[in-house]
């Protein structure tokens, strides 16, 4: 699918009055969601940054219908909305817009339940890699080594790969995306909206206060995550798993930028030694081999 940027919808769905931090990566994602599904989406948002930055009641800084829901409930609430719309003949998409804590941790049972049931929802996990709303505590999606308020010497465990876990549920659609590549995210949202059943998009979203970097560098850092191979863009579409550009060129390890370039811009990794970084590089390589093996194992759509 190709499209021209100047032909994208002009209507804005993230409007003045929202309370996001300067340089918030999540809001970039929300803008793209508005471009694709602004007139078709109803959002379930669990406790997260998104529940705060949408603006203060009775006003809102997001021009889409939003239901704020309990922390662990979003995938189930969206299921209820989707089933209600099916019965009432209402056209639209029940979309979850949830953080990594609400997805990978407290909401994981509801997420897995909805995936296994193949509930007709689009679930977007915007991953800023920690509990940013409560002041930067680790989640299971925080990468190894990262400083957070509850991992003061760096997280000792690896990052949970939620997108792969969702793909391995055998859902119709699961993908990764990054706010540095809005065209890719745009296309994936469009594709998800065409598919009946459970759709999951894992969106990588830098967070200036949480990752400790200059708010002007949000897109640059998101881009470096992909260019260094730390974040891999792929999609699992009805049984076929494949890499997406630009990650496709980074299969060749020599094309990747050194991981250090991604890490050095972020205060959360400032304490890492060269040995620590080596471990991270090895893990990234293992992840690549896993994704490539899966691409080989799932070569075509069912």
């Amino acid at each position, binding site marked *: 699918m190709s499209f021209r940027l100047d032909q994208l919808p002009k209507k804005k769905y993230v409007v003045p009055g929202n309370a996001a931090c300067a340089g918030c990566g999540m809001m970039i994602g929300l803008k793209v969601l508005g471009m694709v599904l602004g007139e078709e989406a109803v959002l379930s948002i669990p406790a997260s940054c998104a529940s705060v930055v949408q603006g203060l009641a009775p006003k809102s800084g997001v021009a889409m219908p939003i239901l704020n829901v*309990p922390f662990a409930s979003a995938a189930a609430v969206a299921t209820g909305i989707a089933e209600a719309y099916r*019965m009432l003949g209402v056209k639209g998409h029940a979309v979850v817009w949830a953080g990594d804590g609400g997805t990978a941790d407290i909401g994981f049972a509801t997420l897995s339940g909805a995936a296994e049931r193949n509930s007709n929802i689009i679930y977007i996990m915007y991953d800023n890699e920690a509990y940013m709303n409560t002041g930067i505590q680790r989640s299971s999606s925080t990468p190894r080594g990262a400083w957070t308020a509850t991992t003061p010497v760096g997280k000792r465990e690896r990052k949970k790969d939620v997108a792969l876990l969702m793909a391995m549920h055998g859902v119709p659609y699961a993908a990764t995306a990054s706010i540095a590549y809005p065209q890719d995210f745009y296309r994936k949202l469009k594709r998800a909206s065409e598919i009946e059943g459970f759709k999951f998009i894992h969106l990588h979203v830098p967070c200036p206060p949480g990752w400790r970097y200059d708010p002007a560098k949000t897109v640059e850092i998101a881009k470096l995550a992909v260019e260094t191979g730390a974040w891999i863009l792929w999609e699992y579409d009805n049984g076929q798993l494949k890499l997406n550009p630009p990650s496709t060129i980074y299969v060749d390890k020599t094309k990747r930028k050194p991981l250090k370039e991604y890490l050095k811009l972020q205060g959360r990794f400032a304490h890492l030694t060269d040995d620590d970084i080596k471990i991270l590089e090895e893990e990234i390589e293992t992840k690549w081999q896993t994704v490539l093996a899966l691409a080989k194992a799932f070569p075509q759509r069912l």
Partner: protein
Amino acid sequence: MTVQKTALTGNYAVAYAAKMARPHVIAAYPITPQTSIVEKLAEFVEKGELNARFVNVESEFAAMSVVYGAAMAGARAFTATSSHGLLYMYEAAWWTALSRAPVVMAVVTRTVGPPWNIHVEHNDILTLRDAGWIIAMAETVQETFDLTLQAFRIAESAALPMAVGVDGFVLSHSTEPVEMPPQEVVDKYLPPRRPDVPILFRPGKPVTFGNLPSDNRIHARHKIVTVYEAQQEAKKVIIKADEEYGKLVGRRYGGLVEWYRAEDAKHMVVCAGAWCSDAKHAVDSLRSRGVPVGLMRIRFIRPFPREEVAKLDQYETVVVYDRDITPVGGVLGLEVKAALSRARVVNIIAGIAGVDFDSRHFYETIQNAVEERYKELEFVV
């Protein structure tokens, strides 16, 4: 009017009533002794007898979340649970009430552990008492059916969720003949749900529900209206729902409470749930021996029938039975006491953990209470 009479368990009575209410979405997780409700409903849906979406969920928390989402999207939604299942739903249950989502739930009352115990107790459903739910307790299988049907009308008219308490095993697994009105009568009683209450939640119509308040007084006001004022309004809704049901179906229960042999009584028994039948039996026996005792059956725990309960002050002794226990006594005992200033109130905590408590036990303990052998709070095992 042709009236079908069918032998049904309490659980099947719930399932048939829920079916006749034509819900759009049902979500539930199995737990004893609720399970046969949702099994029956799943069967209705699979056989095409009920046009609804039956969502098999991975937990009770998800069950409540699914019906919450469905109700907020304008659908008629139903769930059922028991005991630990209800406790596992708890956060979503509060969220549902404070959103004024008109969900209907059957709570087949069961002991809370440890130890594991599947038998009857009322502590589970009573945990909803501060959450903003309307809470009713059935005495018979027939009333279980009638209350479940009425619950949809009450919940949707009051814009509050409603729980129907069905005593575990005592009602849920006991078979009684039940009169079910024809579907066309039910349809007349229960018009289609309005999708715009509490809000119209539709794509392309931006609205945010539940985001942070710009002024905490907005939230405070919302809580007062939802948790207190809406409950007071619901009293009228319940009485009207009972009257209309009487007109169309031919059965009335009298609203929030039922008075039983209260005329010229000196002492009154207060209770809720299935064991009220045993208590009535004991009242009859005591009456036949000249003890002037009557009974008030609390049909609705919420809204609490404070005005009716206050009338108990004219009696000498008020004996309140609780099939629940809290660190300060029984829930009903405390609430009845708070509405009275004159009468001597004896709170008897009995039948907890599913311990049998039949009409002979009522007979004996009522006697002990009115003859002042009991203190303010008594535990009977």
